[in-house]
């Protein structure tokens, strides 16, 4: 029963955690000064705008998106973003605008290129190597296990050796 309550609480927390961001984005009026994100004097225009901003890196505080950062550059870039969304530019056009100025670094999701191939496929290559090693090890072990069982005489000899080892203590 306790486990069930716990599970329910966990689920609730998870839903809150996933939904609270966009809501927080609209209701953060009271904390406008202290926190970043989209605030009252920085009104949100659309969900698309927010999603775009979330995938763009703020270059000042490099591990924050421009949706969350409070840096002046992020505020400015949000404004640019808003203007472009309002002007009806497509996501691709807006992203091209950003990467033309700040490079691929501005994207949290690196595009697939020759220079990023290791990043995209490296983990799979490592997984393949690991699987190969695991396969080899398991096969050797299975081969060992499949060997002939001990004969009666060998068993007796083993027991005798174990006994003599014990008495030596």
């Amino acid at each position, binding site marked *: 029963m306790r486990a069930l309550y716990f599970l329910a609480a966990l689920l609730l927390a998870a839903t809150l955690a996933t939904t609270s961001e966009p809501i927080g984005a609209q209701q953060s009026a009271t904390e406008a000064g202290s926190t970043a994100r989209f605030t009252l004097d920085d009104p949100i225009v659309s969900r698309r705008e927010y999603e775009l901003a979330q995938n763009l890196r703020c270059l000042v505080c490099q591990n924050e998106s421009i949706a969350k950062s409070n840096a002046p550059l992020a505020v400015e870039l949000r404004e640019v973003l808003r203007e472009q969304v309002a002007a009806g530019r497509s996501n691709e056009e807006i992203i091209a605008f950003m990467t033309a100025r700040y490079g691929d*670094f501005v994207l949290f999701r690196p595009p697939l290129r020759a220079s990023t191939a290791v990043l995209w496929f490296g983990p799979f290559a490592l997984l393949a190597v690991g699987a190969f090693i695991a396969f080899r090890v398991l096969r050797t072990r299975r081969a060992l296990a499949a060997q002939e069982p001990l004969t009666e005489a060998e068993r007796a000899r083993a027991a005798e050796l174990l006994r003599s080892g014990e008495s030596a203590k």
Partner: protein
Amino acid sequence: MKRVAPFLIPLALFFVLAAFLLRGLWLNPREVPSPLIGKPAPLFTLPALHDKKPFSSKDLLGQVWIMNVWASWCAPCRLEHPLFNDLAAQKLVPIVGLNYKDAPEAARRWLAELGDPYLVSVIDNDGRAGIDFGVYGVPETFVIDRHGVIRHKHIGPVTPEAMRERIIPLVRELQAKP
């Protein structure tokens, strides 16, 4: 051979990893390579700091020039400023200041106090020209060739070494080209 291999593999992997991490110690994550190098510099027409008259970067086509992004609120700008004063005294190359998100009053005071090495400083009040140049921190310095193409970007305060070994030789090299 076959007996030593198993423990040598993790050891070799360790050294490979250590080599990468060691290399990482000498890289600066704040220096983001600019995609604008080798591309035409964005054109701007902005009011000049001293008389508010519009100044267009088009006027500089045909000569090599340096653009220095600065602000009076920027502490590292103070650090590099004497180097630009020296460079201006050499009369080697025009330096244009992009006064980034600054109060013009404070900016003028700053120049009066520390010296004005700039041919002109233009006011980038909202930082839009800065965004076009991919500026994400102040100071930043660009070297632009006769054809208006960005040839070099220095992020952060220019050091005496960077000025002596990179910027000045590059300016001379670009000036020698048609």
